[in-house]
């Protein structure tokens, strides 16, 4: 690709989501057709922009070209069928399109189109895998090759997921519209899940050279920030953005050069990205300012913020973290939340208090084979000076984990507990 082509592709990437979103409404929710038309517009841009230069309003240019193609396509189809009724229909379609265009010019709000697109690609009728693949394709503008690379799946599989998702959407007749009221809440949950899944996929500690992974974090962050502007009154959107910003601030600090994860309390906090922390705290404030019972993302962001605000691990406001975990345990109870709450309590009130909670958790069937339970227990025991028991727990944790790196780390800690 030469420089001009790269420039054009970059402009195209910026416009992609809005272009597909606008076209999707134009073709009444057919995402496949919308994507094809957008691609056609890119081809047209690559043909004309190198000589004519990039237009002042590239988005409007691309939209116009794509819409013209759509109209031509309808015309061609109708002529082929040579039925008068359909020609009339085509005329009507055209008039409707013209009406659409006027309406669009009137409110000049592409935001709703974009939201419709996001809600469609995260539609509950799609499997989790399909939602993620389709969102990355039609909203974030990743190529199937990039998606395949990010999820370490064959390109064919990625392409199939997207095709299948578009077909399912078309067949289910899911309307390309904004959900309202109670439905909005449910559908929003699905959207936020997809965004956080993409982020987490990028966030898992990986060895160097895996360049697609951190890029996923950036895609998710950007999508989250876009959603926060489109739905400024949804506290959980701000909560998720805050959580992602603050977690992303630790990306440079949370692994050794060979990819070994560094625990939160051993990370060099000066390496945390202050810009992202600042953004995260602002997003948290926006979410909290909306009032109401905070949801799981906002609460988790609140905990992340406590860590982000502490200059050293000793400065951590553990009482506040315990209080937030109490809220989290009330709204979204889970053994994992309890385990984390126990850790927070161990720092706020001492290891014995933490141990009492974990001892109860250890008997839950769901956590029987979960390696973090003995690992956390070991930490409390060793802080209480019960080294032999701590060592045994670390060895048990090592035997339970499936992750090689983690096992090595646990065994190392067990060995260090010997003396």
């Amino acid at each position, binding site marked *: 690709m030469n420089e001009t082509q790269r420039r054009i592709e*970059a*402009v195209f990437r910026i416009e992609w989501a809005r272009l597909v979103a606008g076209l999707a409404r134009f073709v009444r929710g057919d995402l496949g057709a919308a994507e094809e038309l957008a691609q056609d517009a890119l081809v047209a841009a690559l043909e004309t922009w190198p000589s004519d230069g*990039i237009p002042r309003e590239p988005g409007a240019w691309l939209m116009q070209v794509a819409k013209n193609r759509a109209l031509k396509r309808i015309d061609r189809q109708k002529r082929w069928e040579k039925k008068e009724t359909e020609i009339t229909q085509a005329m009507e379609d055209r008039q409707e399109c013209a009406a659409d265009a006027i309406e669009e010019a009137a409110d000049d709000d592409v935001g709703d189109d974009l939201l419709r697109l996001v809600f469609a690609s995260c539609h509950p009728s799609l499997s989790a895998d399909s939602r993620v693949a389709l969102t990355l394709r039609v909203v974030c503008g990743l190529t199937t090759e990039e998606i395949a690379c990010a999820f370490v799946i064959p390109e064919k599989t990625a392409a199939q997921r997207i095709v299948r998702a578009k077909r399912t959407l078309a067949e289910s007749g899911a309307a390309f519209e904004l959900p309202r009221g109670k439905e909005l809440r449910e559908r929003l949950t699905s959207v936020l899940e997809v965004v956080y899944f993409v982020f987490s996929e990028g966030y898992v500690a990986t060895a160097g050279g895996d360049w697609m992974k951190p890029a996923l974090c*950036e895609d998710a*962050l950007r999508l989250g920030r876009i959603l926060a502007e489109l739905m400024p009154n949804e506290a959980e959107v701000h909560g998720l953005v805050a959580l992602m910003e603050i977690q992303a601030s630790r990306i*440079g600090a949370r692994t050794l050069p060979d990819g070994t994860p560094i625990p939160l309390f051993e990370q060099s906090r000066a*390496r945390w990205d202050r*810009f992202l922390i600042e953004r995260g705290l602002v997003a948290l404030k926006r979410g909290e300012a909306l009032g109401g019972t905070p949801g799981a993302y906002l609460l988790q962001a609140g905990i992340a913020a406590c860590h982000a605000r502490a*200059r050293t691990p000793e400065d951590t406001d553990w009482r506040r973290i315990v209080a937030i975990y109490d809220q989290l345990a009330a709204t979204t109870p889970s053994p994992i939340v309890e385990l984390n709450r126990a850790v927070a309590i161990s720092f706020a009130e001492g290891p014995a208090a933490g141990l009492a909670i974990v001892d109860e958790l250890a008997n839950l069937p769901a956590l029987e084979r979960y390696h973090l339970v003995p690992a956390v227990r070991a930490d409390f025991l060793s802080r209480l000076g019960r080294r032999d028991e701590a060592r045994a727990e670390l060895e048990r944790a090592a035997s339970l984990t499936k992750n090689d790196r983690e096992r090595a780390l646990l065994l190392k800690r067990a060995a260090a507990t010997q003396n």
Partner: protein
Amino acid sequence: MKFMILGHANKDTEAGVIPSSEEFEKMGKFMEELVKAGVFVAGEGLQPSSKGARITFGKGGKTSIKNGPFTESKELIAGFSIIQVKSLDEAIAWMSRAPSPEGSTLEIRQLFSDDDFASADPTGELREQDAKLREQADKQHGKS
């Protein structure tokens, strides 16, 4: 990846001329577009160099101070923004839309990230050292 956009100074910025409300509005709209696209990270405008100073470091730590204004306005910075995008091309594509006056220049520079030092510092030792220094600096400046 993050990029810093440096807006170069001109006669107006150096004279401390406040942009007209129309210019403000255009710039505000552009910034809003960056924010809505999830690209904008931070940004500030700088006062004229007449309100600043330069320190030159000589032998043995000897410093000489020169108060502003500085004459070579082309080398002066009038403001900066930080954006987070996927490539230099994307940064260029975004900033080409800035409502900057005719004859003005925007400079686009990529910020270093930890990964950029990986090859020069395979053990992470140097980065560790750097991080400690920053930590100290932050403490001194009483950052939260």
